[in-house]
């Protein structure tokens, strides 16, 4: 089963993103997690699933970068389709994301339906 994880501490943004995802994939299972730590815990607990992850950077407790580091040793990394979804326009953030092999793309908030459609979902991972 493939789930969509929205990892962000901004409730308004999470609400809007959930609505956008529902408008494109009405049947998709969307799980909202407010920080990296919650996401780590969730994924570790549900390792059988594959995930399309939209990851914010700036979060309390565990930020996006720390999440990636924590997932470095995750055994089913091939089941993680991670996209950074952030308000940052800092080139250092973009560069850092590009350097991380687990990150598929660096996307600006807000997520749009067109961008969402361009991301493979519900198919066998490439």
């Amino acid at each position: 089963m493939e789930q969509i994880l929205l990892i962000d501490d901004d409730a308004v943004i999470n609400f809007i993103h959930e609505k956008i995802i529902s408008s494109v994939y009405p049947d998709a299972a969307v799980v909202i997690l407010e920080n990296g730590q919650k996401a780590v815990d969730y994924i570790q607990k549900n390792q059988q699933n594959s995930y399309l992850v939209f990851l914010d950077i700036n979060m309390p407790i565990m930020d996006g970068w720390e999440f990636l580091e924590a997932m470095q040793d995750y055994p089913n990394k091939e089941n993680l389709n991670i996209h950074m979804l952030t308000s940052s326009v800092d080139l250092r953030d973009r560069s850092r994301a590009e350097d991380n092999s687990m990150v598929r793309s660096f996307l600006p908030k807000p997520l749009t339906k067109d961008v969402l459609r361009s991301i493979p979902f519900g198919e066998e991972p490439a």
Partner: protein
Amino acid sequence: MRSVAIEQSDFDRAVFDLVPLPMWIYDLDTLHFLAVNKEAIHHYGYSEEEFKQMTIKDIRPREDIPKLEEAVERTKNRRTKFKKSIFRHQKRDGSIMYVQIKGNTIDFKGKKAEIVTATDLTELYEKERNLTKAYEELSFSERRYRSLIENGRDLVAIIGLEGNYKYVAPTSSTVLGIEPDAFLGKNAFDFIYEEDAPHVKEQLGKITESKSVSINAYRFPDANGDLRWFKTELSNHLNTPLIEGIIATTHEVTAEIKEKIVNDLFTELMSTFSKSISLVSSLDQALQQLVLLPKIRMSEIWLVAPDHSELHLVSRSVQQRKFDLFYQQTQGFTSCTEGSDLAGRVWKEKKVLVWDNLSENQHFLRAEAAQMVGLSTGIGLPIMYGDEFLGCIVCFSTTSPAVLAEKITLLTHISEKLGPLVKQKVTEEEYRNVFNISSDPLCIVGFDGYIKKCNTAFDLLMGYQKPYLYTTAIFELIYPDDQARAAEALSLLISGQLTERFSGRFLTAQGEVKWLQWSATIAAESKTIVAVGKDITKQKLAEQALQTAYEQLKTAQKIAKLGYWFRPIDSDISEWSEEVYTIYDCSPDTFIPTTENVKQTLPPKHGHLMESNALFHLEPGTTKSFEHEIITLSGKLKWVHQEVRLVSDEQGNTVKIEGTIQDITASRQAMDQIKKQNDTLHEIAWMQSHIIRAPLIRIMSLIYLSRELDGGGKSTPEIMDLIMDSAKELDEVIAQITVKTNLIHHEHGTDTTDR
């Protein structure tokens, strides 16, 4: 004694006065005149009264009085009345006369007296005395003359106007070995050497016009046929009775003439030597003089090579062209070793050698050529300077040694005198070669400052011709600013007080400045200075450039607060440049950079740098950099950057450790400041990306929700409220960022760098 009594009478008196001889009567006891006749008064010049006051002593010269007294005594005791003897009498005018006195003792008026007649013999006596003297002189002169003629070294002869002998003194046998009789009936010109006959004849011809004539040296053969040199004085006695001829007194001058010939030739050679500049041309000229000697056909000069390995033929001269054939035949024969050929043999034996029959002499390597041109005799004459053999002269003749005896003697004398001349010329040549070959400028300068001589290197350097330089004071060539210093150096040099070389700038003809360094010695006797220069222009320019570079480096180091130090590997004390002391806030007077003292300047946290040379754990050839703090002597904390390396010698042994030290306190502080500012900027950038953009994105998302998803289940007022919340949040974070930005501006404005 018996006396005759005479009565005074007129008759007696008349007779007494008339007797034409001076007469007087004197008292034998008192010697007073008792009577004098008129002739006595007339002859002696005294009056009768004066006579009667006088004694007979008064008419005698004082020195004859003892003789008179003796005579009076004899008269008193005389048995006969008559006496006769010669005395000297003195007249009233003081003149002396010789008189013959005849006297008779008488009684005169009761007194014992003597009557005396005086005959004046003065005139006769003088004549006789002169005659005696003349006779004695004549006698002496004749004895001397005879002695001269018979035993002297002069030849005396009486000849006629044509030179025919009329008389020859016996000295001819002692001087010439020819008996006088051998000349009689012959003419002098039968004997006189034919070359000299014309000038003898000419002089003889002059005797008719004067009393005496001198004949210059001419040659005349002796009994052995050897020609000897004579000078003759002719005395005209053609009109002297008995002689009626010319007396020729002849004196031998052979020794003097030979010496003169040698001296003349030597003077000629010396003049040749002094006129010629090079040794070879001097020798060429000398040889040309030698071949002018009769019977000398060719001559050569051989000189020992500088390495004493062999003799070199340096010059040769021939009397006639035909002898050139000899050298054409012996081309290439220009050297020989000690002992080989005539020259080499002279070298070996160091004495005059005469070889005859050259064409058959197996030791003479050019015998065949000698035969072709008819050379018979070779004379080898060593040229010696003290014990040093310089070379030899070899003369060749077509006649036999016997005929050449006189020439050999002459040449021997010449060669003996030639040594010092050749030595001087060789030395001059060596000196000149050294002088001219030297690539360094050489000058001989008079005490007056004028250049007496300079070499080619000097005139090439200065760009002037020698004639100009030789009329120029050396000071005129010196750069004006250095002239006073040069004059001082010259005067110190002359007084022997100059202790270092003089370096100064010279101006060339092209106006270029040349730095010359001079070493000089004084030749006091010639009042000159021999100076050797060295063109140090390049060196000086390099020095100046180096000095400028050094000054620039010092300035750069000062500006960069960069110091240089080094420490010999076996020393505990480092050498610091001025700037190192400045960095440590000290001076060489207040701080000695020993390892321990330097360690004391490190704060405890950097102490490890000095522990067991940790700072200098270096690999040869690599440079290590360190940045650390120091506590300066004035207690300031400074940051320094050091670059340190080991220095090895050519053998790879480490000889010293060296490094640079730079005060980087200011840049370090600036870096800290920048780092802080960077951190703030990063923070601002992060805030802009995450804090500012978060509410903004939220607003944009809400607008997207409203527009694209029809509110997503939220009413427009709800969305507007959410937008309002986000806008407020945005306003707040913008305010926070403004504060941060101002903080950076503030920090930037208080930059502590002092540059």
